[in-house]
C-alpha cells in the first residue's frame, strides 16, 4: 500500500473516538503539559468507548480517514463497567471486516488511556501518525456500500 515517493509530504487524517471519562481526560492532561504532538488527530468525544458503533469506524474510512483510534478507559476502569470490553470485541470484529477490504490493522487502533496518562496519549498519537505515514494514504476509501454497513450493524451479540 505504501507510496514512498509522497510519504514525506503525506499527512494522515485520523479520527479518534475518546471516552469522556478517561481517554478524553487523558488528552486534556496531555494538553495541560503543553508539549506538542502531531496535529493529525481530530477528536470525537463519546460517552464511553462502548458507544463506538462499528459503523462510525467504517464511515470514517468511507469519508477519507487514513486511520481511526478508539481510546478507552483501562480494562476494569470503564465508567460504565464494561463498555471498553465491548469496544475491544467490536474492534476485533472490525479488523476482520477491514482486512477483507485490504485495510491494514494499524489503521484501526484501540488504546487504553487513563485520565492521568497524558504522556501515553501523546506517545500513541505520535506513534500512530508515524505508522500511518509509513503505510501511506488509504488507497481506496471504503465504498459507501449498504451491504457492508448492514454487516457492521449486525455485529455479534456482546453480552
Amino acid at each position, binding site marked *: 500500500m505504501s507510496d514512498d515517493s509522497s510519504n514525506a509530504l503525506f499527512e494522515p*487524517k485520523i*479520527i479518534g473516538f475518546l471516552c*469522556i471519562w478517561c481517554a*478524553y*481526560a487523558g*488528552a*486534556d492532561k*496531555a*494538553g*495541560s503539559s*503543553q*508539549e*506538542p*504532538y502531531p*496535529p493529525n488527530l*481530530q*477528536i*470525537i*468525544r*463519546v*460517552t*464511553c468507548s*462502548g*458507544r*463506538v*458503533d*462499528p*459503523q*462510525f469506524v467504517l*464511515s*470514517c474510512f468511507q*469519508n*477519507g*480517514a487514513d486511520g481511526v483510534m478508539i481510546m478507552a478507559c483501562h480494562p476494569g476502569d470503564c*465508567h*460504565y*463497567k*464494561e*463498555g471498553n470490553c*465491548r469496544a475491544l470485541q*467490536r474492534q476485533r470484529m472490525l479488523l476482520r471486516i477491514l482486512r477483507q477490504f485490504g485495510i491494514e490493522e494499524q489503521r484501526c487502533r484501540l488504546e487504553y488511556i487513563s485520565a492521568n496518562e497524558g504522556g501515553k496519549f*501523546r506517545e500513541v498519537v505520535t506513534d500512530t501518525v508515524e505508522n500511518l505515514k509509513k503505510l501511506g494514504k488509504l488507497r481506496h476509501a471504503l465504498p459507501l456500500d449498504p451491504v457492508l454497513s448492514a454487516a457492521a*450493524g*449486525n*455485529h455479534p*451479540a*456482546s*453480552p
Partner: protein
Amino acid sequence: MKIGIYLCGCGSMISEKICFEDVREAVGSFPDQPYLTVVDFICSGEGRTAFIEELKRERPERVVVAACSPRDHEATFRHCLSEAGINPYLLQMVNIREQIAWVTSSRKEATQKTIGMLRGAFYRVRLQVPLDVMTLEVCTDVLVIGAGPAGIKSALTLAEAGRRVTLVERTPSIGGLPMLFEETFPNLECSACMLEPAMMDVLHGEHSKQIELLTLAEVVEVKGSYGNFQVTVRQQARHVSQSGCISCGQCAAVCPALRSDGRKAIDFASDVSLPHVPFLDEKACLRSKGESCQICQDSCPAGAVALGQFGLTQSLELQFGAIVVAIGAGLYDAARLNGLGIATSSDVYDALQFQQMLSLIGPSAGEIVSKGGQAPASIAIVHCAGSLDQEHIAYCSGICCRYAIAFSHQILTRLPDCRITHYHRELVTPGKHSSELLNKLKEEGRVEFRRYENIRELALMPAVEMVVLCNAVVPSDAAGQLAALMDVPLDGDGFFQELHGQLDACQSFVKGIYPVGACREPMDIPTAVNEGTAAAALVLAGLRPGRKLEIEPVHAEVEADRCSGCRLCVTVCPYRAIAFDDENKKAMVNALLCRGCGACVSACPAAAIRGHGYSDHQIMAEIRGLLK
C-alpha cells in the same frame, strides 16, 4: 438554520496559537453562513454576560463554543444558553485549548485543525434537538435492610432529618454482629454497651416515631425504580406484642420447651437483646408438634402473648424512594480449611464461637473452658484462616488481626498463665489506635507471634489445648438472593458491587440502592457506621420532599416500531435500565435509570435505539464534517 459560533481567546492562550481571522474566513464558507463572535475569557463573569447578551440579541438556533475542555465548562455554557432562553442541549463545544492551542507547534496547523474540528461540531450541532429535563414525583420514604451498626446509623440519620424509615431485620433483635462481642478493638470496649444508646434511639428516641422496625422480617420482592420502589416484606409473627410486653420474662419462665440455643421456645433472644421483648420460636414450641400448650399466653400478666397467628406470616406491601442495604457479611466455613491438621486438638472454635465463649452472657458466662470442662493451658490463635490464600479467599479480611489481638487480652485477664501463640500470615493493624493493643502484648512478652506461609504448616505446630480460627470474612448467605431480587450486581467475591470503588463506594449500579457496611466489603464497626451515615446523606441529597426528581435528558430511547424484540439491549445495559414488555415484545428504556452510556445504542442490530444528545446521525455528521 441560524448558527452562532463563539471563539474564546483565553487571554492569549488560544488566540496566540490560532489565527482567528483565517478561521473566520473558513467559517464563512460553511453552509447557512453561521456568524462568528470572539469573546475573550468567555467563562469569566464578564465573558458570560457578553455571551448571554449576544445570544439574546442574535437568537441563534444552535450554538458552537470553541474554547477549553467541555470537561471544564460545558455545564457553564449550557447554563448560559438556558439564561438566554435557548434549550441548553443545542450546544456543541470544541476543545481548541487543550487539544489544539496547547499541543500544536505550528500556528498554521493549529488553525487548520481548528477549522476541521469546528466543521465537525457545526455539522453535528445542526442535528442536535432540544431536550427537556423530565420530572417525576417521588416517594421520600426509605427502606433500610439490616439493623446492624450500619443500618441503625443510617435509619437514625434519616429519621433525624424527618424521613420515614422502615428498618427490616431478619432476626428478632437489632444491633447486628457486634451484639455478640464482649470487648472490641481498638480499646476493648463492650460493643453491646457502645451500641445501646443508638439502639435505644431507634426504639424510643426522639425520632423513633419516624422509624418502623420490622423484626423477623425479610424483603421478598422489589419492583419499580429510584423514587418509586414497591417492596414486599414478609414478616413472621413474634407472638408477643412489642407495645404490650413489660419484659418481665414470665412467659419464658413457664414455657416447658427449649430451642436449640438452650433458651426457652418463647424467650428473649439474649439477656441484652433489643427490643427486649421475647419471641416465640415456632419450631421449638410444643404447638408445632400438635400439642395445645398455651401456658405462656395464659400466664403473661400484660396480656401481650398472642398465639392466634401461629404458623402464619404476614406480607406487607410498601412503597419507598430509596433502599439502603446493610445486611453485613458472613464467615468462611472453617470446615473448608482442610489439611489444617488440627486433629491434635478437638477444641477448635471459629471466631464467632469464641466470641460467644468470651461473652459474659454466653453459655459459659464468659469462662474459657475446653469441651472437657477445664481451662486450656495453651491456645493457638490462627489469623488469616482462609484469607490471603489463593486456595481459599484471596483478599485480606482486614479486621481479624485486630480482634485476634483483643482476644489475647481477654484471655490473659481470665487465664493469666495461658500460653498463647498467634499464627499469622500477615499482621495488619491499621487505624490510629489499633497498634496500641498489639504493642502492649509485645511489650509484655506474654504471647508468641509466629508467621506461617501455608496453612498446612500448622499441622506441625506444637500441640495446644484450644485453637481459635480467625476465619476470612465472606459475603453473607443472604447476599445472592437479595441482590437478585433487586437486580443489583455483586462483585467477583460476592459482596455488593459499588458504583465506583473509590468515589461512589456506597452506591450500587442501580440508582437509589445503597449497599453499606460489611455487605460491601469486610470492615470494622466505625467504617460500617460511617457508611450508614453516608448513604443517608446520599438519600437526603437525592430525594427531597416536595421536589420532583429531575431526569437527565441525555439518555437512550427505544423507537418501538423499529425494535425487533431481540433483547440484546436488555443484556447489554450495565444499569438494568432496559425492561422488556413481554406482551408487545418490545424493549423499553427507563429514562430514570439510564446513565446514557450508549452501549445499547451501538449494540441494537435494528438501530432502534436513539441516544438523545448523541445519536448515530449526529456522530456520523460530525465524522463527515471533520473529514470534509
